[in-house]
C-alpha cells in the first residue's frame, strides 16, 4: 500500500468518526430555542482622596506634615468606595517615617468640619481607624457604593520639628464587602 493511499484511508476514517460523533443521539426532527443573557461581576475597594479631588487608585494616599514650634494642625481627607458594592469594613494601615504619631478618626454619617483650620468637629459618629503605631487596623465603617467617609488625621505625641509624610493604605477583603445573597426575579 502506498503512503498516499494509506493517508487517504486515514483521512476517510477520521471523517467518518467525526460524522458519527456529530450525529445526535436522537435522529429525526428536533426543536430548538435559545436566548442570550449578560452577566457582570461586582467590585469592591476603597482609596484615600483629598476632600475635593479623586481617589489615588493604586497607590497609598499621602499627607505631608510640617511641624513647627506652633505645633501642627490636623488634616482631613476622604476614603472613597471605589467599587460597586457596599462596604461594611476596611483595613487601614498608616505609616510615617520618624515624626509624630498620626491618628485616623472617621466621621460616619457626616463630614468633619473645621473652624479656622483648627481641631474639627463631627456631627456624626466617630470611629477610630488606627494610627501609625498600630499597624493594620480593621475598622467597621460602612461606606455605601458611590459614597465616602470623612476622615481626620491628627498628629499627636511628641512633635519633632521638621517635615514628614504619612502614607495611608486602605485594603478591602471580600468579607468586608456586602455579604453574598440569593435573589429571585
Amino acid at each position, binding site marked *: 500500500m502506498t503512503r498516499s493511499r494509506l493517508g487517504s484511508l486515514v483521512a476517510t476514517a477520521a471523517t467518518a468518526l467525526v460524522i458519527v460523533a456529530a450525529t445526535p443521539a436522537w*435522529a429525526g426532527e428536533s426543536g430548538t430555542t435559545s436566548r442570550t443573557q449578560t452577566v457582570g461581576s461586582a*467590585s469592591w475597594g476603597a482609596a484615600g482622596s483629598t476632600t475635593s479631588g479623586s481617589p489615588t487608585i493604586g497607590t497609598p494616599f499621602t499627607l505631608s506634615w510640617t511641624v513647627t514650634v506652633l505645633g501642627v494642625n490636623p488634616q482631613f481627607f476622604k476614603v472613597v468606595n471605589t467599587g460597586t458594592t457596599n462596604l461594611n469594613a476596611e483595613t487601614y494601615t498608616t505609616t510615617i517615617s520618624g515624626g509624630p504619631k498620626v491618628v485616623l478618626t472617621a466621621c460616619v454619617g457626616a463630614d468633619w468640619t473645621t473652624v479656622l483650620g483648627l481641631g474639627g468637629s463631627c456631627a456624626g459618629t466617630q470611629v477610630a481607624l488606627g494610627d501609625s503605631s498600630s499597624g493594620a487596623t480593621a475598622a467597621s465603617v460602612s461606606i455605601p457604593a458611590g459614597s465616602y467617609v470623612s476622615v481626620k488625621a491628627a498628629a499627636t505625641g511628641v512633635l519633632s520639628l521638621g517635615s514628614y509624610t504619612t502614607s495611608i493604605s486602605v485594603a478591602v477583603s*471580600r468579607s468586608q464587602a456586602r455579604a453574598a445573597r440569593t435573589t*429571585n426575579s
Partner: protein
Amino acid sequence: MAHLARHADSNAPRRTAWRPLAVAVTGGALLMTAGFGVWAGLNATAFNTSPQSVDSGTLSLTLGDNGAGFSSAISNLAPGDVVNRYVDLTNGGSLDAQGLTMSVSASGDSQLITDGTSPATKALTVSVTSCSTTWTPSTGACTGGTTTSLLGTTTLSGVASAQSLISGSIASGAVEHLQISMTLPDQTETTTNGTPITGTIQGRSATLTYHFQEAQRTATTTNS
C-alpha cells in the same frame, strides 16, 4: 390467341413484385384488429370516494420568560451570590418529544467563564431545577408542586456541550417550568487602594447564550 398469351406471359414478373407487400399490409391490419380486440375488454376499478388526508406532525420548542428570565441582565454579582431566573419551555408542536438538552455558549471575560483550574472554583456555575407546577419568580417558591434537579451545579465549560435535562418523553403541549441558577463561587480577594489583584474576578462581564433542544419522539409503526 397466341398473341394474347405472349402478352400475359410478359406481365407475370410485375405481379409477383407487389403481391408480398399487399399480403404484409393485409396481415398487419388483421393483427392490429385482433390486438385491439384483446384490450378492448371490460375493466373494473375501485377508489376511495373520500380522499384520505395525511398530515405530518410538528415539533416546536419555545422559550418564555417567567419574571425577568433571560431578558434581563445579571449585574453586580459578588462571590457567593446566587441569581435565580425562571423560564418556561413549551413543547408546542403536535408531536411528543424526548431528550431535552441544554448547552450554554459563553463569551467575554475568561475569569467568569473558566478560571483555568480544575475543579473550577472561581468561574460561574449554573444549575437547573424544574417545578411541576409554576415557579413564583419573586420568591422562588414552587407552590403546590415538587421540584426536581435536572442539572446539578456545573461550570460553564461543563455545559459548553449539550447536557441532558430530560431524557424521557415530553408530551405535546407540555410546559417545563425551569429555574436557572447562576452562581459566582465564593472566594477571597483583597483590593488595596482601589486596585484589585491580577486576574481578579471583579468587574468582569460575560455573555451567555442558552440553547435548548429536544428531539421528536421515536418513530412508530401503527396498524389500525
